[in-house]
Each structure stands twice: as C-alpha cells, then as structure tokens.
C-alpha cells in the first residue's frame, strides 16, 4: 500500500514529477543566479578594501606622541593623567583615545577645554593639580599630571 501523509497527500518523494518539479528547478536556477550576483558584488567590495585602507587615516596618525611627552615630563607610571581636549576640535575623540592608549597603564581622564581649563591662558590650577605646558604641542597634547591617589 502506498505510504501517504497523515492529511491524505502523498509524501513529497511520491508526488508525480511534473509542473511542480519544473517550477522548483526554475526557482533553483533563479536562486543560483542571485547567489552568483551576490558573490560577485561582494567580491568587488572586498577587492576595493585595500584602497579603502590606504585612504583611511590610521587612528593615531598625525597626533602627538603622548608616550614620549609623558616620558619627557617624567610622569610616573602610577600617576593619574588628565588630557585636555577641545570637544569642538576635529578628531577630539581620537586624541583622547590615542592618548589613553599611549599613556597606559596610567588612568587617564579627559578634561574638556573651556570648562575649567583654558589651555592657552593657563588659569590658576585647582588645588592638587599641576598644569604643564608642553611647549609647542597642540592643545590635545597638553597633559595635566596629578599626584597619585
């Protein structure tokens, strides 16, 4: 006796070969064409990545060498350091992130220019702080070493 599905339809493999099979094959061909197009388009994008990489600026490129500045200043490894950043300035985020990376393992905090620090005019520093002019460095490179907690 022929095996049937519980709803009474023949099992898929028992159905007659005909229109539905041809429709399935046509759909498979369409899917294959879409797959080829997807692969080719993706490959084109991956092939363009070297150009993207060349045109992208390396994260810390063109920013001051914060590690060298800290060495010159003699900032100890356990000192907390504040980096003065002007939030309006281009690449302000990168300045802070690259300073943090270069100054590790010192805990680094960002001090926004204009809130309580005016780098160019050097106001009276708050108690316990020592502002240091790095001479010729950009505002983002000015470090503010603090005594260890």
């Amino acid at each position, binding site marked *: 006796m022929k095996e049937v599905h519980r709803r009474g339809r023949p099992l898929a493999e028992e159905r007659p070969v005909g229109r539905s099979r041809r429709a399935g094959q046509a759909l498979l061909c369409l899917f294959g064409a*879409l797959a080829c197009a997807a692969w080719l388009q993706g490959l084109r994008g991956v092939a363009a990545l070297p150009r993207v990489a060349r045109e992208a600026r390396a994260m810390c490129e063109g920013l001051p060498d914060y590690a060298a500045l800290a060495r010159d200043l003699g900032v100890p490894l356990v000192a907390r350091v504040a980096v003065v950043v002007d939030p309006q300035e281009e690449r302000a985020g990168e300045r802070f992130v690259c300073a943090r990376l270069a100054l590790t393992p010192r805990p680094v905090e960002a001090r926004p220019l204009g809130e309580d620090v005016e780098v160019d005019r050097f106001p009276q520093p708050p108690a316990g702080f020592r502002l240091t002019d790095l001479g010729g460095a950009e505002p983002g490179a000015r470090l503010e070493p603090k005594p260890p907690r």
Partner: protein
Amino acid sequence: MNGAAAWLAFVVLPGVGGALAWLRWGPTSGAIERLVWSAGLAPALGLGFGSLLLVAWRALFGSPPGLVAGATTALLLLGAARYAPRSRTEPPASLPLSWRRIDVALLAATATITLVTAVRAAVAYWSEIPEGAYDAVATWNLRARLLFLAPGELGEALSATNYPLLLPGAIALQWSLADGLSAVAPRATGLAFLFAVPLLLVAAARERRAGLAAAAFFLATPFAVGQGASQEADVPTACLLLAAAGLLAASLRDGATQGGPSTELAGLALGLLSWTKNEGLLWASLLLAVAAVTAPRKLQRRGIRLLLGAAPGAVALVLFKALWAPASGLSASTFLGEGALGRLLDLERWGTILRALGGRLDPTAGAFPWGLSWLLLLAAAALLPWLGARSADEGTRLLGRLAIGCLAILPVVYALTPLPLGWHLETSLDRLLLQIYPLTLLAAAEAVAARLVARQSAAARIESGVP
C-alpha cells in the same frame, strides 16, 4: 621588541588550541575532517582559554605575566594530553549530495579567488591601519595594555567598561609570552578569528561543498572582512557563536549516548562566547534554549558535559561582572527596567527598527557594504518550501531555529533599548548582524543542501522504480 618572538607567541596559543581539538576528536575520525575542525577551532580555543587563565592568574596573584604564559601553555597541553585518549566518537557522515565535476571545479575556483582577494584586503589593513579601528583602540587594545602593564590591583584598570576580556586577555598573553608590546598580537589575533570562520563553516556543514560555498560568501562580504581586519570583537563573537552552534549540531547528530568530544568543545565555545562580548551571553542563552526545544532528551543526556565545558568561561564572566565591571553601562536590567513596556509597545519605534533592518536588504543603501548578502539569505529561506521534503536531522533544525531566533530577537532588543534608538541602530545594528551572519550562512547552506539531498534521492528512487 623582537618580531620573531611576537610571531612565535602568536603561533603557540592557536597551535595549542588546535592540538587540543585534534587530540579530543581521537583517532577514529577522518583526518581531513579532524584537521578542518581543529584549524577552525584553534584560535577560539587557544586564545580564548589562554585569555581566561591570564586574567585568573593576574586577578589571584598579580605576579609577572611571563609565569602566567608558561602556566597557561602547560595547562592546555597537559589537559589535551590527559583527556585525548577518551574520545572515541566519529563525527557524523557528510550528506551524499551528488555533484558534477564541473560544479566542483567551479566551486574550487570560486573559493580560491575569494580567499586570495580576502587575504589581499587583510594584508592592506595590516599595513595601513596598524592600530585598528576606533573601538579596537578605545576598548580592546587599550584593555590588553592595562592587563599587561598595570601594576598590582586590576580593579581600577579594568573598571572603565563592562565588556568581558577574551580579546584583551588573549593579546596580553601574547605580549607576556614575547615579553614586550608588539603590534603583531592584536592584528594577528583579529585575522586568526576572521579566517577561522570559513574553516568552521566548511567543518560544520554536513554537505562539505555547501559549507565551502558558505565560506566563499563569508569571505566575499566586505563588511565582514573589514571588521575582522580592524581588530574589533564582533568577528571573534561570530566565530565563537558559529563554533558553539556547529559543534552542538554535530553533537546532536553523533551516535554517542552522552555526546562525544563535540559536546565538551561546544560547551567550551559557549562559555568563551559569553567571555567575548556582552551580546555573547544573549546568543549563548538563546542557543541553549533552542537546543532544549529541538532535542530535549539528547540535551539532557549531554547536559553535564556541555555545562562542564562552559564552566570556565561562565565562571570568569560572573567573577568579572561581580568584582570589576562598573554598575553603569548596558545590562539586562537597564533594558528591562523602567519604561520597558512602553518602549516595547511603541509602534513608531518598531517602524524605525524595521526600516533599518529593511535597509540591509537594499544593496545600494547605507554606508556599510552588505551587498546582496541578506537578500540572498532571505531568498534561501523562501526557497526551502519549494525544495520538497524536510530534513529530520536535529542538528540542521537546531541551526535553522537558532538563526531565526537570533534574527527575531534583534528587533526586540532594539525596541527595549534605553539608549536613543536612532543612534543605537546606527552604531550597532550592522555589528550585531555580523555576529550572527556566519551562523545564518551555515543554517541556510545546511537547510538547502539537506533538502536537495532529499530531492535527489526521491528523484533517483522514482526513476529507478524503487518504492
């Protein structure tokens, strides 16, 4: 520092991870199958397990990291040697889908062209963007430096963000082994995970050529290659999710009563997945839930092995969250806290989310080049009912349900987010999609291949007149 030492430090950990997988599978498996699985799992196991040990050692003893590196390597090798003889289970046989020679030749050519193009892109990122992308510098590489350089107490050093530490720990461990900072470690680690994904796709697919096609699609996805080469944590997360799901699917398919080595390795990958990124915990929970629904009895029998494997990563995550991670930042409680119901029922938010998701189907929209990838996966899902008989295989069902579950939970996560919705979608949706992309490719390849096999065998039976 010495470049050769940096390279040696990088090679030794994945090498130990690969050896661990190779030995665990035992001598009864096919050599090529064992080799592909071992190579695919090498970075995840070697670097992931090494990262766990480094952080544990630093937390407990704060001793010079060189000792940690030695202890890590020794422990991994001893563990592999000790447990290797016990494995006796063969991985499941591949599907008997018949291919014409021309198809095989085309596929081999496709895979070769794709690999060469992806390697060329990776080399360009290596030399042109040595520090990696913004998040790599700000989060992962910075914390690796803290682990390696910070003296004494780790609490303050690690309290900046609540992200887990697989990548920072793996990089710091390589610096420890090489006894100095080098740019090789973060770059090589990122690329190791990137190229492990296609290997895992080939290993985990029962129909190998379907796995090869999925691998070719992955490496022909500009966003995936770019992110992997940018030293970010999303490709490692994707790699571990794929490893855990692929191994668990293999475990459900094998004949051992309590699961073979793939069960323990699936557990290990599951634990390491939650140790990579916070989202990893969500994917790991979802995988366990889907497995419990798909194969409750088998999961029950394999439960202890699975949980034992997951324990190191899970314990490290719990301790990290309890001891060091700041209370601030995103967590389940912030998503489900005040106003969650209102956000969930806000139709305008759902419209924004669905529009953002729909944009990923449009190859011309957005700044991120997904191309036709998601459209192809959608087409694969739509094609399935036309291909005839369903596969009764539990592993294939697990992968399919998990992929659907991951895609279905994404809009819910965004509906619940307490962060500004537009900004959150813009900054994270593509990366979350990337985390589940290889799994979705595998699920689609497996489902289509399984149905094609059923279709071919049915046609052969009809033609030969066999009932």
